[in-house]
């Protein structure tokens, strides 16, 4: 049967899980590692780690987090951000990732995709396309995590990365990111009808029912979300998944490098949340109810040593 993957996307800055709106205004929500562990146990089908500042510094700084989480998380992991060379990819895969997603470097040097697909296999190479919807309703591929334009038409670029050998497309709508108004169905439909490789829809999920729409109307092969999940598990009141003490918040330079206002208020008043948070189970149930096959997420059980 054909099942649809539900993917938790973690935007990471230093050791922290962050989330912004339209790729801007990051708010620190906790440590990336703890959220990753939680999503694994809650039944996420896959994880995406996006280093949000990597492209700027031209390197991916997630190796340590990848290494640590790879020891206890046994679902596919895609790593994105600042990947520029075959050597970078090798390092990231060795650290424990299964796939890398490439955006900026691929637009500068499309051969990176074909070369990487040859060395590691297409199944390892995801093309990350961050599309900005312009006033004329055309989509432009942006790079450097929403900081640079390219003049590349996102739909044409999608066709090109397929022919270069990319195995999947991680398609993110910049305009819809963090807005919680639902996925950009038109964008997803345009890309998924233009290519034969799987398309992961990302950007905009604001409530559990949005996910089915991306599949039914957009024809997405996988659905990724951040805010909907993050804010669900970050809520301390009746869902005591995360508990932060003062001591654990102190992680050196990084903790002060982002907007930690939200953490400092103990997630308390959940101000300015643009989504209706939902758990991975709730999302999957909603998808099942609308006739979409998903992997049941009650399958987690502790595995003891041999």
């Amino acid at each position, binding site marked *: *049967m054909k*099942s*649809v993957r539900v993917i938790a996307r973690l935007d990471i800055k230093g050791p922290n899980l962050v989330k912004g709106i339209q790729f801007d205004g990051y708010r620190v929500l906790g440590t990336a590692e703890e959220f990753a562990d939680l999503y694994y146990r809650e039944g996420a*089908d896959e994880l995406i780690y996006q280093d949000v500042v990597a492209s700027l510094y031209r390197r991916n700084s997630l190796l340590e987090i990848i290494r640590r989480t790879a020891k206890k998380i*046994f679902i596919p992991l895609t790593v994105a951000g600042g990947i520029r060379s075959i050597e970078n990819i090798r390092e990231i895969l060795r650290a*424990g990732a299964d796939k890398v997603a490439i955006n900026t470097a691929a637009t500068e040097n499309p051969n990176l995709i074909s070369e990487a697909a040859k060395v590691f296999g297409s199944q390892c190479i995801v093309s990350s396309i961050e599309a900005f919807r312009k006033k004329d309703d055309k989509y432009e591929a942006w790079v450097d995590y929403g900081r640079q334009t390219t003049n590349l038409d996102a739909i044409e670029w999608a066709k090109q990365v397929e022919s270069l050998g990319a195995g*999947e497309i991680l398609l993110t709508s910049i305009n819809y990111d963090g807005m919680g108004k639902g996925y950009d169905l038109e964008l997803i439909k345009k890309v998924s009808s233009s290519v034969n490789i799987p398309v992961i829809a990302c950007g905009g999920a604001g409530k559990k029912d949005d996910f089915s729409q991306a599949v039914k109307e957009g024809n997405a092969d996988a659905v990724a979300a951040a805010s909907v999940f993050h804010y669900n598990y970050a809520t301390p009141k009746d869902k005591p998944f995360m508990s932060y003490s003062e001591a654990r918040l102190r992680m050196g330079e990084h903790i002060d490098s982002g907007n930690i206002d939200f953490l400092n208020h103990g997630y308390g008043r959940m101000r300015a949340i643009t989504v209706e948070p939902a758990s991975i189970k709730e999302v999957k149930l909603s998808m099942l109810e609308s006739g979409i096959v998903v992997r049941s997420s009650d399958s987690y059980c502790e595995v003891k040593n041999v």
Partner: protein
Amino acid sequence: MSKVIILDYGLGNLFSVQRALEYIGVKAIITDDKEEIKRAEKIVIPGVGAFKEGMEQLKKRGLVPLIKEAADRGKSILGICLGMQLLMAKSQEHGEWQGLNLIGGSVLQLSSGKNDNKVKVPHIGWNCLIPSQCQLARNNNYWKGTILEGIDKESFMYFVHSFGVHTDKPEHTIAETHYGGNSFCSVVQKDNIMGCQFHPERSGSKGIEILKKFVSYSFNKVRV
């Protein structure tokens, strides 16, 4: 504890299998060293990539006779993904190639199908393990004594592949999986030789359970 090695023949990411084994307390080394392989009690053959390249690498490193000898001596062998396909007699991946021939059967391309049954190939994602006809004929004892013992039917596992295994003898297919119009063998087992088309090291806790079964069970006497 039995000594487990992960066969290094230059293809694919071997570390995730190693980490998954480490998680259940098994220190497996990644090696192509002949002496290490001779000393091993259990051998994992992982691998991602093309069948032809896989066989060529095994031959180049002189590993084919060692694997066959290990198989004859009743050592447990687990092939994962391409590693499973290599266990078969032959493959039709871009030509026709001879495999290790530890189990009779062939490797055929998945079809993307037509109309309502249309699916994308490669098959990437989670899919179900369904007990084969032979296993279902055992009623509630399906999968008993096999590498899948204790796993619920229709458990979801993570697949990434474009080709599927079809065994000559139906009893060697322990579980099958359906994708679009395709039906292929997702778990193969002939006594001490077994394989998974999916990645147990990437299939969450149920995948880990399968690895655990592999390292802790003695399959030598098992008749399926």
